[in-house]
């Protein structure tokens, strides 16, 4: 320590935030303030953002502890739609489980699952209209599952096989489908957020009616692209929904490292004069209702909305990390917002439109359909076996027209 200090306040010290608990400790979510379901008000979509600042610090919830849908955000979906939503989440979970095993079997190099976060992307997708565009991260495959994108295509991408729609050029799960409103996943974090704003600006420039949705995780909100996105969205009142999926963990880094001194991630939107809502990300009904609100706001040319989904990444970040090395093993069981599949299942049983038997039967049907898709996908090859994209494909598509230097290199490679 320098001894020539003249400060009357003593030496400075650096604050490095730490999560409440590390491995070996008792999980503690007492710092997560969870309001009663149904207790958060529902403003009109054209509300002045200045008058709804409190929504950035609360949590909008619909399903209560008894599985009932309560409060002003309830009543958006029919029973049939809810059953469909449950099936989407179950499908995503089953798909993940099978692909996770396939990775362990060496059929692909890498996988990322959604365990615990299924409601976020599955419910959001149901609030969009045809032609709208998502700029997703790597943990929103529910947008594809709920949007009817064929599972076989997804698996062929994961396996980088001869039917891979991306010709083996991308890491597993970095899907891309313009037709299904799913922008090419980068893998570089946060870049898509400002691109979503640009896409939405283009829609407004062309006097179109389509809107965009940007997606980002809690950790990546620290990137400058996040801030660029909020500036551009705010300045040009772009028709975009800016989603922040706060699943508490960025690989091993707890959300406090990215959040800093702000109370919530949603509060980031307030400085930009945007409505910012916080929602229970494990509550399918709440996610849908808030998504619908924000999407309608964008579609009515009222500008952007920031939505923070409070959820929990129950699994590992990817197949490359072991969460027990950085957080208590029992932490996911202690997560106070529960499991999205169980909560919607219980709600539907409570409404008399679902039952344990039907659930078990649906699980079997879904597993069957996933296995069928997997068999078909595997018939076109897996990463190290069977059909795969040609080495020639490697040189295609760098430019629309192959320039001379790439033609020479392809020739040199002998493919």
């Amino acid at each position, binding site marked *: 320590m320098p001894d020539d200090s003249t400060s009357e306040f003593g030496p400075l010290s650096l604050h490095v935030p730490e999560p409440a608990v590390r491995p070996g400790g008792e999980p503690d979510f007492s710092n997560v303030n969870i309001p009663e379901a149904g207790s958060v008000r529902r403003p009109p979509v054209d509300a002045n953002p200045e008058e709804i600042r409190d929504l950035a610090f609360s949590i909008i919830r619909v399903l209560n502890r008894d599985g009932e849908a309560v409060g002003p955000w309830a009543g958006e979906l029919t029973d049939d739609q809810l059953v469909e939503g449950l099936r989407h989440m179950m499908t995503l979970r089953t798909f993940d489980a099978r692909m996770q095993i396939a990775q362990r079997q060496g059929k692909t190099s890498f996988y990322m699952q959604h365990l615990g976060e299924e409601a976020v992307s599955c419910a959001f997708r149901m609030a969009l209209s045809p032609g709208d*565009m998502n*700029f997703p991260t790597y943990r929103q495959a529910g947008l594809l599952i709920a949007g009817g994108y064929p599972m076989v295509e997804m698996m062929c991408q994961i396996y980088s096989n001869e039917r891979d*729609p*991306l*010709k083996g*050029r*991308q890491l597993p799960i*970095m899907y*891309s*489908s*313009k037709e299904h409103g799913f*922008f*090419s996943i*980068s893998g*570089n974090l946060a*870049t898509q*957020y*400002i*691109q*979503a*704003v*640009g*896409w*939405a*600006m*283009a*829609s*407004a*420039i*062309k006097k179109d009616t389509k809107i*965009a949705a940007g997606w980002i995780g809690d950790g990546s909100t620290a990137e*400058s*692209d996040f*801030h*660029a*996105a909020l*500036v*551009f969205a705010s*300045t040009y009142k772009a028709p975009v929904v800016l989603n922040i999926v706060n699943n508490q963990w960025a690989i091993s880094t707890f959300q406090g490292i990215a959040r800093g001194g702000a109370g919530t991630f949603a509060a980031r939107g307030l400085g930009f004069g945007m409505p910012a809502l916080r929602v229970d990300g494990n509550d399918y009904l709440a996610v849908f209702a808030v998504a619908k609100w924000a999407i309608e706001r964008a579609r009515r040319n009222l500008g952007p909305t920031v939505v923070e989904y409070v959820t929990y990444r129950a699994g590992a970040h990817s197949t490359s990390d072991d969460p027990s090395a950085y957080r208590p093993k029992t932490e996911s069981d202690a997560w106070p917002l529960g499991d999205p599949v169980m909560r919607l299942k219980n709600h539907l049983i409570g409404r008399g439109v679902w039952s344990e038997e039907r659930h078990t039967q649906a699980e079997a049907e879904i597993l069957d359909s996933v296995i069928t898709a997997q068999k078909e996908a595997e018939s076109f090859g897996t990463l190290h076996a069977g059909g795969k994209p040609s080495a020639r494909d490697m040189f295609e*598509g*760098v*430019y*629309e*027209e192959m*320039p*001379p*230097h790439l033609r020479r290199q392809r020739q040199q490679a002998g493919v």
Partner: protein
Amino acid sequence: MPRKTMIEAIRDAMDVMMERDDNVVVFGEDVGFFGGVFRCTHGLQAKYGKTRCFDAPISEGGIVGAAIGMAAYGLKPCVEIQFADYVYPAYDQIVSEAARLRYRSNGGFTAPIVIRMPAGGGIFGGQTHSQSPEALFTHVSGLKVVVPSNPHDAKGLLISSIEDPDPVIFLEPKRLYNGPFDGHHDRPVTPWSKHELGEVPDGHYTVPLGKAIKRREGKQLTVLAYGTMVYVAEAAAEETGIDAEIIDLRTLLPLDLETIVESVTKTGRCVIVHEATLTSGFGAELAALVQQHCFYNLEAPVARVTGWDTPYPHAQEWDYFPGPARVGRAFLETLEG
């Protein structure tokens, strides 16, 4: 034929394309109401309205990121980075996103954007208004990199760039905006109105990407140059009396290797001139290609005359800048070699 400055020619290219194609939009810092700090976009907002030409926040990453999103929608953004020295916050969006979008999505999404930026020194701009970062872009698969050297080419190349289906980095040598500067900073500069390459046809025309042009026929050695250095090389040839063949590359990526090889095969000697720093500069790529393709015709080592490997200095600008004296010395050494 009307003569224009390079600024007017660049503006004309955007004007022509905005007129022809509603999907062309122009934005960047100060480009809207004011028309850009170098006036390249002057009048475009008044003519095409605020939604097609507008001011952007001071966020280069935001400008390029938004442009990529717009391009994915179907627009053709032509954005300005106020100085090439300011492009680094956008580097990730350019390298990891614009350049690779077509490839990684197998053509599902593309980024046909043009990123214009004034580059190069000679205006006492110090280290933050003088850089030539072309090699940072020629190293990136999926980009095209263009450096015009005169108003005629600037307009034709910019129209080609806007029409191109892939992302183009368009580096404008700012010392050439008003005239063909030959490195003699102590002499008055000829304005473009007195130079034949200041002749800019009205309306739509293109100069193709990937095609170099011979600016001076010669027998003794080949000079590979682009941007401002074309005129420095011309001055060096005049002053040394050496019969140099000067090739203006115009597009660095993709490169017109054929024209280069044909010339060096003929002259047997090659001098590469660029303003950017030496180490891992674009000259290194050119030298490697020349030795690979012309090895048995070479009579002397390939020479490089470039900026020094220092940040671009302020007071020592003319010690840094590879002027006609340094280029002329390299000519003589190459002839002796």
